[in-house]
């Protein structure tokens, strides 16, 4: 009876199969880890000064915001607009006015963020601390803006 030895193709296919298997298992493990980290939720208010008003029109309630790395940050719950101030100084006098609201406005977004609260800090996705005053570079599907965390509330 002939004895069959493994050829190069067989070895190659077995290695690729093993790598695929390891990849799938690792991926599933990572997804699982992500899920278990999000045991709490909170509402984060983020603020942008003098935002392009037409850019804000491109955001929708319920839309997910993403970080630069492509990780989900949180879901938009509310969009609040307020007039953006402009301050000019002439002859040593301060003159305060408002930008045309069609052009610029101040914007506050309320975002529902999932993560873990350790009693002191809320960790978004169990890893990234939500700290008031911290600047965030966030993307929605059609908008890219820099926001500053204004408050963290409704931790549950």
């Amino acid at each position: 009876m002939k004895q069959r030895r493994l050829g190069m193709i067989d070895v190659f296919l077995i290695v690729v199969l093993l790598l695929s298997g390891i990849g799938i298992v690792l991926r599933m493990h990572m997804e699982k880890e992500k899920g278990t980290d999000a045991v709490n939720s909170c509402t984060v208010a983020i603020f942008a000064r003098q935002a392009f008003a037409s850019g804000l029109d491109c955001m929708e309630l319920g839309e997910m915001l993403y970080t630069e790395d492509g990780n989900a940050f949180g879901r938009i719950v509310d969009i609040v607009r307020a007039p953006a101030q402009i301050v000019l100084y002439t002859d040593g006098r301060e003159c305060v006015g408002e930008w045309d609201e069609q052009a610029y406005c101040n914007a506050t977004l309320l975002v529902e963020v999932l993560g873990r609260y350790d009693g002191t800090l809320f960790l978004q996705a169990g890893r990234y601390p939500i700290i008031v005053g911290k600047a965030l570079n966030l993307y929605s599907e059609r908008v890219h803006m820099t926001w500053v965390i204004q408050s963290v509330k409704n931790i549950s």
Partner: protein
Amino acid sequence: MRQRRAAPASKPNKALNWFDFFLIILFLLCTLTAFLTGAWLGDRSVGEEGRVVYTVILSEIEASINVSSYLSDGEIVKNENGTLTMGEIIAVEDKAHQVPDARGGKVVFVPSSEYVDYYVTVSSNAVRRKGDGIRIGDVRIAAGDSMHLRFGAFMHYGARIIHVRWEESEYEAETIGHD
């Protein structure tokens, strides 16, 4: 004359046998599963092709430069190096640049006679992916971002995207109102 026929040489059997087929089928199944579950490429593997309509503002362009001749409907817009087509112009609106000024204790906006703002609406084929936004080639199209654009022989550095719309069939391409 009798010729001696050489005995056939024993060649190694190179045909694929059942074990090879088994491995290949297993490999294909694994690849298919990985692809379908996004194990290798993640959510980015699934992209939706369509059209993006975006408006950029070319701000504070000197009125003495005759830019209008470069910004006509149908004009092709390219990136800085001219290596990527960013779409074609579908609408142009020009407005005098507004300069804030303090008059009588109030802030008023005075139209500048020296500078003009151009609102250029561009339409292009693009790909939309969950978590990755809308892209033309490698360039992400997001309101708030700036990019260097070339309109024929006219170049503008730092054209700011102020509005982006994913084109749905029921909507007509239109400029965004800038009253």
